[in-house]
């Protein structure tokens, strides 16, 4: 004995059903969109504290299975410079958010030696909490096939040469980066 199926006109879709179907279709379309699996990040700052965010986000994106590119421009070039360990420092001047042992006015933080002191403090605090070093993050980035792109224009303006940068760095311009960025849902400026 077979069961009588209701005639099609009796299977009315409620508003909830329509919403669910649309949601599923949109999700399916997004999961097929290659741009959802690409990230394009700009690193424009050259201090130790600002070197972390682009590298943490880039490696996390790569770990999430995204093709990831980081464009290092202006002071951000410091991060991929062979001499980064010496070049990346923290500037305590005009940075009221920086945790200090005692409150310090800018007149004090502007004194000679304070940049070096603040840099040492941040490095030791990060090491104490087992935060990865910039060198480690760069190694991980290259291992995970994150593209590290040095901005050719600022390299020329700052008087650097390609040899000044760590292995695996490629070089390009804004248009080449934008060509990647327009195909990436995730674009981040640091």
């Amino acid at each position, binding site marked *: 004995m077979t069961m009588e199926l209701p005639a099609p006109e009796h299977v009315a879709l409620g508003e909830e059903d329509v919403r669910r179907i649309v949601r599923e279709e949109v999700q399916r379309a997004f999961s097929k969109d290659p741009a959802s699996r690409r990230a394009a990040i700009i690193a424009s700052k050259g201090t130790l504290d600002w070197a972390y965010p682009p590298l943490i986000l880039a490696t*996390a994106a*790569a770990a999430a299975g995204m093709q990831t590119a980081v464009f290092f421009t202006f002071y951000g070039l410091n991060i991929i410079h062979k001499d980064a360990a010496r070049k990346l420092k923290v500037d305590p001047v005009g940075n009221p958010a920086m945790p200090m042992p005692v409150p310090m006015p800018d007149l004090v933080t502007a004194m000679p030696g304070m940049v070096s002191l603040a840099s040492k403090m941040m490095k030791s605090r990060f090491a104490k909490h*087992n*935060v990865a070093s910039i060198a480690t993050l760069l190694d991980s980035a290259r291992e*995970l096939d994150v593209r590290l792109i040095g901005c050719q224009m600022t390299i020329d303006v700052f008087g650097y040469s390609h040899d000044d940068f760590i292995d695996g760095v490629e070089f390009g311009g804004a248009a080449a980066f934008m060509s990647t960025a327009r195909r990436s849902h995730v674009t981040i400026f640091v």
Partner: protein
Amino acid sequence: MTDAIETDETVDARNLMCPMPVLAATKAMRLLEPGQVLKVLATDKGALSDIPAWADDNGHDLFISGTEEDAMVFYVRKGADL
């Protein structure tokens, strides 16, 4: 509770901070075949949200999470390549 689970690889990311647990897990997962199981140990509180998100993004199956000797433990079965 988790003694009986067969694992093919273990990543000890205890004491490592964000994003290192996820990076270590990614490196280990690359060497496994779909269906194999990776165990991840972590103490970074961020891992509580990072490991599930990472597994989901990569199509892996996080089938058990819990704690083990003051560490968080995650069992993740590798999914098919996306």
